[in-house]
């Protein structure tokens, strides 16, 4: 065995000696922010989408393929949220490490219990998610569960910094649990508050804060409501009034605003994810803003 060959092989193949940052490809901003919380400077996070984009409908742009090509870890929601674009990125990237089934492929929805699993799979029901509702990030307790699993995965992929990920997870948990306790105390008046939603995007938030969803604007998931359908919703709200109509920041404001004007209730654009409002600059700001906006509507 030639010593030079052995040495050069070691240099190329030994992860303990490789100090390059872990390249994280985050499908949605909340997972990008979480990876940054857990990895700090040890990770290089690329967030594929913004809070102003509909994560169901993203163009499989060349820039995304180029970023996926270099990723060591892809952190996505899963549960078919990205079914219209993520497969193209995975197939065209030529990156073996982030293919489903590999340690470099991480699905947040696998770490939590999904709500709204459909009983019947029929396209006449609209663009439904067969695995259950994928919008898990609106409950901070889900974020905590995903953090646990994600830190473990990062440690597995980058064993040289396993201790760092564990330490940062512990620090995050401390701050996060304190924040959850605070949000829950603040949000106590929201329990039982009736709301209307534009898209079925908030079941986890409703479950967490005890909000009561009394109307949905989209006649079927992913199908924009017509004025006639909005009028029907407004009529139904006369019998069961809602305190506010809620949408995600990326959604077309017109249906919510039409209903708000006709039902005399405030229309709220919740940030939905990191970057969805000026205050939602990180995961903590995301829930600070969400809880505050709901409290303002409840007053």
């Amino acid at each position, binding site marked *: 065995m030639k010593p030079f060959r052995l040495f050069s092989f070691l240099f190329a193949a030994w992860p303990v000696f490789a100090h390059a940052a872990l390249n994280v490809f985050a499908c949605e901003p909340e997972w990008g922010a979480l990876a940054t919380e857990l990895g700090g400077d040890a990770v290089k996070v690329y967030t594929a989408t913004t809070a102003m984009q509909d994560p169901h409908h993203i163009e*499989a*742009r060349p820039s995304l393929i180029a970023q996926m090509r270099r990723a060591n870890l892809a952190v996505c929601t899963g549960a078919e949220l990205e079914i*219209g*674009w993520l497969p193209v990125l995975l*197939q065209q990237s*030529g990156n073996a490490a982030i*293919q489903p089934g590999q340690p470099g492929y991480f699905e947040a929805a696998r770490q939590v219990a999904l709500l709204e699993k459909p009983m019947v799979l029929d396209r006449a029901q609209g663009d439904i998610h067969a695995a259950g509702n994928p919008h898990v990030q609106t409950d901070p307790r889900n974020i905590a569960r995903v953090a646990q699993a994600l830190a473990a995965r990062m440690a597995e992929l980058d064993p040289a910094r396993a201790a760092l990920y*564990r330490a940062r997870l512990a620090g995050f948990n401390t701050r996060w649990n304190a924040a959850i306790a605070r949000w829950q105390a603040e949000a106590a008046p929201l329990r039982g508050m009736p709301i209307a939603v534009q898209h079925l995007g908030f079941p986890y938030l409703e479950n967490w804060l005890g909000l009561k969803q009394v109307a949905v604007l989209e006649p079927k998931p992913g199908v924009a409501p017509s004025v006639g359908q909005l009028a029907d919703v407004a009529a139904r709200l006369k019998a069961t009034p809602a305190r506010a109509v809620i949408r995600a920041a990326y959604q077309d404001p017109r249906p919510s605003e039409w209903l708000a004007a006709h039902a005399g209730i405030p229309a709220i654009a919740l940030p939905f994810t990191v970057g969805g409002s000026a205050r939602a600059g990180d995961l903590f700001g995301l829930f600070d803003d969400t809880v505050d906006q709901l409290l303002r509507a409840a007053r």
Partner: protein
Amino acid sequence: MLRPALLAAALAAAFPAHADDQADLAALRAEVQAMKTGYEARIQALEARLAKAEAAAAAPSAAPAASAAPVEAASSAPANPGAFNPAISLILQGGYANLKDIPARQIAGFLTNDAASTPARGFSVDDSELVLASNIDPYFRGYFNATLNDGSVGVEEAWFQTIALGHGLTVKGGRFRSGIGYQNEQHPHAWDFATNNLMYQTLFGEGYGNDGLQLRWVAPTDLFTELGAEIGRGAQFPGTDRNRNGAGSYALYGHIGGDVGESNSWRGGVSYLSTRADARTGTLTDSNGTLVDTAFSGDSRTWMADFVWKWAPLGNPTVRNFKFAAELFRREESGGLSCSGGLLCTGSAGAYQATQYGGYAQAAYQFMPRWRVGYRYDVLDPGSREYGLNDTALPRTDYRPTRHSLMVDYSPSEFSRLRLQVTQDRANVGQDENQWYLRYIYSLGTHGAHTF
């Protein structure tokens, strides 16, 4: 040669190698593994001690928040029981066309693929497309696309593709649409217009497919950069099946792409296709105005340039979006051409040399959810043609075929689309007409993700 070397390297990475000199490498790997295991054990021991110390420090808050809601079991398995089965989708398409009764439509000055179907007048059903796709195992993906119509089944694509090569490399093998150009990999249901553009119709009939191998490489750069090389049977127009070993055609292409701000993205590229034809049949008009049969044998080389630009406000295309696409080509064909039929052509063979050009530019704008309008301009330049001995029998027109198309489409959901198109067709001298098309496109079952 770079190409075979790259291919060999890719194949060597895809399949376990058994060559003798691999033994040396295996021994080296084992040695490294042993050292690595030793070090890892020691590092893990240190990490465990560190973690213990940390846990002691952070004990009160290390677990997820204790909260009122019961902790639910995580969803460990995919909920879809059919997840292991191939994704199946069926495309239904058809419609109505209002066209003049022109028995043999020609594109002035070009030797085209006569097998390319001209749209039927009145009501008709286009080919239904059946698509099956799935990961085969952790190493390969499979895809099958068949077109079905009265008494005929066509295998449009049937290929495997590697998923575990890494390093940005993928190898595809079987029958596939070539990666050249922009529109080439799209099947008709993915087009933005009811009819094919004049460039692709002239160059290939519909699109260029091949039985062969494709090697693609994506560079590890911020700017999207992909290079592709293909070898294949070359049986499709502009080549012909030639009953021989080896490759009948090859193609090379490169694409780059990226974003400009949050709202704009683009991709551009160049492609080259080289193939050979042996007695490829075609039709031309002779000096008497009679249609004559031609047979071309020789080399066909095509260069293409493509550019796509997409806009969506803040990258969110759901309400409004805009797409622009343009492609250009230059084709050189040289060899011999014989013509027969009519009074002037009596099986006479002559030298043939042609350099021809063309392209299209199109734009589609979604101005509100579900509704889009689009415009396409097609133009061809017959360029220079030499018929050798047949020069007197075959006139050379300088007529430039053009088409203007306007379309509006309505998509009740992403699984259904209805389209109205009007086309001013000037593909041939004295063949001017206004064409009307109504089209429906429905996709049943799994809807595959869209490429850019």
